[in-house]
């Protein structure tokens, strides 16, 4: 075939395939937003879920989702950064490191329902945490750590070796080079990894059904004592998240407006993920330019 024709065909094919992906994405997003957004209202966001009648909201679920996300990130980010620094900067290139890296890759494809069952057996039953935010956050940490670690590791490995040499040649210790030069340079990549994980955590349902539980206890947003069972800050209370709420309303819910509630909750979930994404990017760019004086 003529090289020019082959090139045209290849280009057209690639454009078509990209087009399919974009259409699917727009279709899904559009469908969820179009069917959900009209049902979103201030009332929906600020009232409790209802068990039997129509007109319930998702106030507690929204808060639980955000709270779980924050706690999970607070636990998993330091651990993942530490592990990633070890793997990319300190680990010798031998079979053990290879084994660790392979294990992390395998773990990152672990089905979330399996992580959920594991969390249930270990945290809920063995450690007597009961269905609780803490058990849910720990299960999500297990679910999230492998991906987050390898994302951060890739970000660190993307920093050119010349930067490390330059740091060492200036008399910096290994650790100071990592902390002062490699980490700031890798920040945009690390941030992307965190954002991707946050999306996964926020939308996760299967790992939470058996750990954080599916029932919302009655909570009060004016009770600031984190040890009180009705406080919204208590980490030992069961907590249903938005994603679990969608699942439950559709499987065992008996409210008459189940379709409407799940459509609105789905739209809300996506909107919050998008907002989180944008917020994290703005914060990250701000941090990056403050650390590096780069205009981005």
């Amino acid at each position, binding site marked *: 075939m003529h090289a020019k024709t082959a090139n045209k065909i290849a280009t057209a094919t690639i454009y078509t395939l990209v087009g399919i992906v974009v259409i699917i994405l727009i279709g899904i997003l559009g469908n969820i937003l179009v069917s959900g957004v009209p049902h979103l209202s201030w009332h929906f966001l600020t009232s409790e879920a209802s068990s039997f009648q129509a007109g319930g909201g998702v106030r507690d679920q929204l808060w639980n989702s955000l709270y779980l996300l924050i706690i999970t990130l607070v636990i998993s980010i330091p651990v993942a950064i530490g592990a990633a620094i070890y793997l990319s900067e300190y680990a010798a290139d031998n079979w053990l490191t290879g084994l660790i890296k392979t294990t992390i890759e395998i773990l990152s494809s672990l089905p979330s329902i399996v992580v959920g069952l594991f969390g249930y057996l270990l945290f809920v039953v063995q450690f007597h945490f009961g269905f609780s935010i803490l058990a849910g956050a720990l299960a999500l940490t297990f679910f999230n750590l492998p991906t987050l670690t390898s994302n951060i590791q890739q970000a660190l490995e993307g920093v050119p070796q010349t*930067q490390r040499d*330059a740091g060492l040649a*200036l*008399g*910096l210790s*290994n650790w100071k080079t990592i902390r002062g030069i490699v980490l700031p*340079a890798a920040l945009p990549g690390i941030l992307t990894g965190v954002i991707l994980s946050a999306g996964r955590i926020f939308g996760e349902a299967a790992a939470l059904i058996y750990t954080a539980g599916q029932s919302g206890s009655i909570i009060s947003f004016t009770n600031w004592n984190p040890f009180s069972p009705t406080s919204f800050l208590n980490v030992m209370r069961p907590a249903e998240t938005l994603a679990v709420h969608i699942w439950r309303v559709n499987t065992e819910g008996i409210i008459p407006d189940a379709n409407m509630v799940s459509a609105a909750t789905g739209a809300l979930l996506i909107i919050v993920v998008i907002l989180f994404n944008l917020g994290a990017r703005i914060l990250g760019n701000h941090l990056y330019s403050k650390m590096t*004086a*780069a*205009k981005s």
Partner: protein
Amino acid sequence: MVDNAGAIITTKDVHLSYGSHEALHGISLDFKENELTALLGPSGCGKSTFLRCLNRMNDDIPNIKITGNIRFEGKNIYSPKMDLVWLRKEVGMVFQQPAPFPFSVYKNIAYGLQLEGIRDKELIDQRVEESLKQAAIWNEVKDDLNRNAQDFSGGQQQRICIARALAVHPKVVLLDEPTSALDPISSSEVEETLANLKHEFTFIMVTHNLQQASRISDKTAFLMNGNLIEYGPTEKMFLNPQNQITSDYLNGRFG
């Protein structure tokens, strides 16, 4: 404390091996203070490896073994008592690829000083200006000190790196092919900078560029296959090499 012949760094019988492979077979060379010495030789001859022994940049390579004696101002740099931070402050380094840190120009230069514990803002400002001037980059960056150093051109970045190395007032600066990644114009800017500074600092420069070596170096050492073939004043070496191999290399018969 400078050696009798005015040498600031002396090396005696330096052997270096990676595992069972020996890359340097006993090199003895003395570097005189405030001169620019060029290390020449074909690729893989060990000149960069040798250069990196002089501020112990090879330390972290697995299975490496370095024997012989390398002294800076009479002190054995491979002694367990040697303070690496001090050594690298005294013996700075500039690399082949310009490697400014992802910070502002100002912070790049100030970083080494802050590590030394200098907190006096005025002193830091003064050193930043002084070293950027020495590296002949001040006029190009003086209005952009808060811009990211990586936003500048390759030649400018390399001169910022030279300024960064000079800011801590080193006695020796090691240059590992400092212009080979740059375009001809940037390359000549860096070369000119070095030529102007060579009586204030001791430079040891690895280069592949023979013209560059002949233009700016005072002494030239020619290495091949891990051996020092010839060493002497640059002019003498280029006009009248003692060794046939040196002559062949300088005339471009191999390399």
